[in-house]
């Protein structure tokens, strides 16, 4: 079972690389969905079935809800949003796909280095889980920072959350079911609100390009043409 979890984690890394290089929105959403399902399954995969026996049903519930929310509901929500706002299906990169891949690759190396500094010595799985978590989080942040569309930023955020979940399940950190569900609910609600906001942004700005979302700031004096304090007639 442990080897299986290792394979899953390795696939996670590959998914990150793929996400960094993915040029199509639907493709990226599918990758995130796959990651979500894997995250849901991870606690069960990491469970020490031989010695600890059959886990409590709590674990199953969490795994199921996790997989459902992260692997199904949220990607569907995003896909719906993409269709609804009728945006172009390309991810518009600020950093090119190749460079993004290289960065993720560098992150993988970096994550292993950081993990080594942290002295993890519990399970083999966790030894891999921590760097994978780091990389996934990094990829998420990269997607947020280096892609133009608002939808992509939500996507990146989901990847970031996936990374944190990997970490949590990799180290078998137990929060209790309420907290676990609370966290999930929060993230889901967040994704939901973000989705709604994207609609509103689309309606108000007639674009979801985040380049249009930079009217607020402190550079008015340097760009006087952008100086528009709200004055209603």
């Amino acid at each position, binding site marked *: 079972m442990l080897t299986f979890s290792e394979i899953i984690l390795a696939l996670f890394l590959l998914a990150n690389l793929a996400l960094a290089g993915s040029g199509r929105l639907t493709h990226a959403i599918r990758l995130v969905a796959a990651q979500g399902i894997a995250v849901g399954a991870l606690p069960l995969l990491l469970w020490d079935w031989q010695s600890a026996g059959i886990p409590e049903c709590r674990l199953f519930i969490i795994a199921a809800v996790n997989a459902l929310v992260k692997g199904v509901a949220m990607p569907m929500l995003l896909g719906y949003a993409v269709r609804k706002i009728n945006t172009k299906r390309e991810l518009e990169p600020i950093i090119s796909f190749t460079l993004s891949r290289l960065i993720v690759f560098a992150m993988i190396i970096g994550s292993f280095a*950081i993990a080594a500094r942290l002295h993890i010595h519990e399970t083999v799985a966790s030894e891999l889980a921590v760097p994978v978590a780091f990389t996934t989080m990094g990829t998420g942040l990269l997607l947020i920072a280096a892609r133009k569309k608002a939808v992509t930023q939500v996507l990146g955020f989901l990847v970031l959350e996936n990374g944190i979940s990997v970490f949590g399940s990799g180290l078998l950190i137990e929060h209790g079911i309420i907290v676990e569900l609370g966290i999930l609910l929060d993230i889901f609600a967040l994704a939901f609100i973000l989705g709604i906001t994207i609609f509103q942004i689309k309606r108000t700005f007639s674009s979801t390009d985040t380049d249009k979302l930079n009217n607020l700031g402190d*550079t008015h004096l*340097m760009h006087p043409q952008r100086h528009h304090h709200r004055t209603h007639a």
Partner: protein
Amino acid sequence: MFLLETIFTIPIITVGLAAAIHATAYIHGEERRHFPRFWGFFISTILSMAAVILAGIFVAECELPLLVAWEAMALSSAGLVAFDSTKKSVRKATWIYLLACHAGVAALLLTFKLNCSATWTAAFFLAVIGFGLKIGFPPFHSWLPEAHPAAPAPASAVMSGAMIPLGFYGLLKFLSIHPMTLTPNFETVGWTLLAIGAVGAVGGILFAVAQTNLKKLLAFSSVENMGIVAIGLGIGFLTLSDSNCSEKIHIAGLCFGGALVHVLNHAFLKGALFLGAGSILRQTGTLDLDKMGGLMRRMPFTGALFTLNAIGLAGMPPFNGFIGELAIYISAFAMIATGDTTLVVAGFVAAIALALSGGLAVAAYAKAIGGAFLGLPRTAKAAEAAETPRRMWIAMTILTILSVAMIPASICFLRYYANAYATDALTGAAIAGGALVALAVALILVRRFTCPRGGIVTKSPTWDCGYHAPTARMTYTATAITQPLVDFFRKFLRTRKYIIPFKGAPEDPTDAAIATETDDIALSSFWRPAFTYIARLFQRAHLLQNGSLHLYILIVILAVLTLLAFALAS
């Protein structure tokens, strides 16, 4: 006991009272609507100054009350500076003043933080900056020529006469926290104060000479007078630092005594002068000396009182301004007489700075009196000016009477304070002053008797070398009186000349004129460029908040990585 406290309290009460009397009439017409605001700030200024005095008594135990009172004083006097709130110059002045006060408190906070024997020198320099920002030590004096013209005259009088010297009170209190055993420090203290005082005394009055705005002139003259006080204190500390001078306690006593006497003299004289400037402003609507002239005939009481006080502040016998300066001169000479190189150098620096500032002060006050009160009125408003309501010049009279009373009082004080050292010289000066007055009266009587027709004078037009009908435009303006001096120091003063072109026909250029403006060099060459530079720099940094979410997130990522690296590395 409480000698220092008493000396610094006297101006608060007297100048405060005189200014209050003056203010009842100074604020007139439309402005009376703002009476509550004025009196609120005025009274709180006076009270907070009293609080500073009280807090100073306990400064060795706890410095917090002093700091609070100090800030309160700054704030309430800033309210006075901002009185004429719709003017742009007033806004600017208020801002500069508040900044100066706040920077002072910041420096004082650090002063008291560092106030232990290991870091005493640093604390002392910070104290000089902190209190110096209030006193107007160069280059921290820049708020004075901004705030004084902006504030109503009674407020200027209180601020200049009573509040500024409180900086010395604070400084002396700070120095008294540590015991006298720290003798090596006296040299630092002495040289610092002497250097700052010399620069302030000469530089301040030099800029006063170049001003055409009466209140700016008076403000720069405050820088000068505070410089003189600093010189007195500086040479006092230097004398104390010298180990092989037998009379050092007496000489130092004379130095300190002279400085303290000068504080009081300055308070009364400058208080009266600011009130006088206020009276002129009220009656003529201008502070520009070039637009006044001939006011002595129209405002005889104000003019006479202003003249007497101005000559007094120039340090001329028989007025009281001379006594304090004389004490400092005598001690400077005494230091030279010891032959000890340090003291000789210090004595020379003090004496030359005093002499130079004295000479320049004559020029500055001759300009002020001549420009405002003498000659012919240069504008219609000046020609129509009338004497102020009685209580305005009565307020000035109160201060003038106090000035006269200062002559015997300061001699008694110095006799007590300096252990009768060189009292003869001071008494002699007073007697000589008396003799001068008596002789002058006698000569006037002689003239009366020798003149034919019982001294009835004939009036004739001014003899202008053949030109028989001199007009107001032909008389020397205030700017013109000091033009040679200002021109000589032009590299330092950086006076700007404006040629006001004539509007009428070219053959009758009646309205052409030259106006000059001299900015404070510290403000225009240091503070303003420095502040502008910093503001520009900061504004460039505003690019970091340019609205781009990507940039923000990049910054977050970098910051997290830095924190993580720091966490893992440590």
